[in-house]
């Protein structure tokens, strides 16, 4: 597990979403889902880079739990950023693009993403504000 306030995203396609919409609700994916929360909640205030059962992603909690923040909805109170290209053959994941309630990022070049007070700031100026203090 890495804990930083910002990370670099290489060129490619990413989904910004509630993990509950990415990780399928199948028996094969159950362990991934359970381990995710076990690991994440050891350090829930941090913007974490996790690799769990060969799935790598960034994850942060939202400031205010469930909601829809700049078009990204969450029932888990968390938002993940995951590379579609790196996991396209993983049957445990639903990586369909452009679904309602999530953000699809197509990056032609590297980009950084920073978390401040549970808000996500991408270097291409996209923001996901989950902390109402910053609205």
């Amino acid at each position, binding site marked *: 597990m890495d804990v930083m306030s910002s990370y670099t995203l290489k060129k490619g396609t990413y989904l910004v979403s*509630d*993990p*509950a*919409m990415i990780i*399928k*609700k*199948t*028996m094969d994916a*159950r362990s991934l*889902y*359970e381990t995710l*929360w076990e690991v*994440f*909640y050891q350090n*829930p*205030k941090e913007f974490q880079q996790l690799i769990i059962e060969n799935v790598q992603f960034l994850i942060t*909690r*939202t*400031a*205010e*739990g*469930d*909601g*829809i923040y700049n*078009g990204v*909805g*969450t*029932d*888990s*109170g*968390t938002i993940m950023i995951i590379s579609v290209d790196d996991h396209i053959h993983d049957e445990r994941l*639903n990586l*369909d693009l452009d*679904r*309602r*309630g999530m953000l699809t990022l197509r990056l032609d070049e590297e980009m950084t993403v920073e978390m401040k007070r*549970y808000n996500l700031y991408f270097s291409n100026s996209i923001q996901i504000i989950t*902390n*109402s*203090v910053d*609205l």
Partner: protein
Amino acid sequence: MAKRTYRKRSTRGRRSVKQQIISILVLAVLAFLVYYFLPEENEVPTPSYSTYQNEEGFYYYQSVGSEDYTYDARNLIGEALMSELNTITNATKTLITYGDARYALETVDRDLTEAEKLWGAYTSTMINAVWDAGDTWDREHVWPNSRLGLDRISNTQRSIASDLHNLRAATGSINSSKSDRFFSSGSGEATITDDGGFYPGDDHRGDVARILFYMATTYEELVLTDDLELLLDETDHYTVEGARMGQLSLLIEWHKLDPVSDFEKARNERISEIQGNRNPFIDRPEFVHLIWEGKTIGDLEKPVAETSIQTHMFYVLMERRWML
């Protein structure tokens, strides 16, 4: 002597047979009593229904006066009852904003014994009541956020997403586990289930059932279903088409197995003071049977005089004796 001896033996023999028959009869009666009135070790425990329920868990029908807010729903069943309840729950409903719901829950979800704590959803965790920007607890949508038919929720909005009846204080961890999952069968503590659902825990299953019944009645766009294929389909989350939750038949079962609690009654009262409306399935739990189980009011009427257990046992014994 020989004759006398023979007689004595003969007399003893006749007595012995008589005694044996009596003994067998006594043993048979005892065995019968044990069989009928003592629980077997492996027997499934009888659910602990409340005094407001019959032996099958159905809540008795309550007659109310004209001052009661459900008075206009009297004598109604099925769709007509659901429609009237929709009118009733919406007539006085004044939603607060989703932002204000954070602070309302500080009061609404207070534990009945520890006044400084909230009774956390699903885990029964005692949570510090003061809202601390999600560090300790989240606003959990029992009917998930993604299944409410909305594509936008903000702290300034008053909408279905800010209805206090559907919001519960929950620790971040359990809120994440439950996420957008439908409710599914289980026992014991809250956990995700093999079929992709979530079991809310023995002490919370009735609570969530009544919350979902309220939501499905108050908001016409919400649908309760048993269709697992539909419940697992997440392609239409955040759309009206995806505004469904379940599993309905389980909720009905849980409504009986986990009767209305004092916490729910207090919570209903507190919400009515803030939001202006009540969850009728907490005040009138029998409505569930009339709407979703095809029962009639007559089916749910409480017997005039309850037969005492002793009398009941006597009649059972007498009946069995005749049969023997």
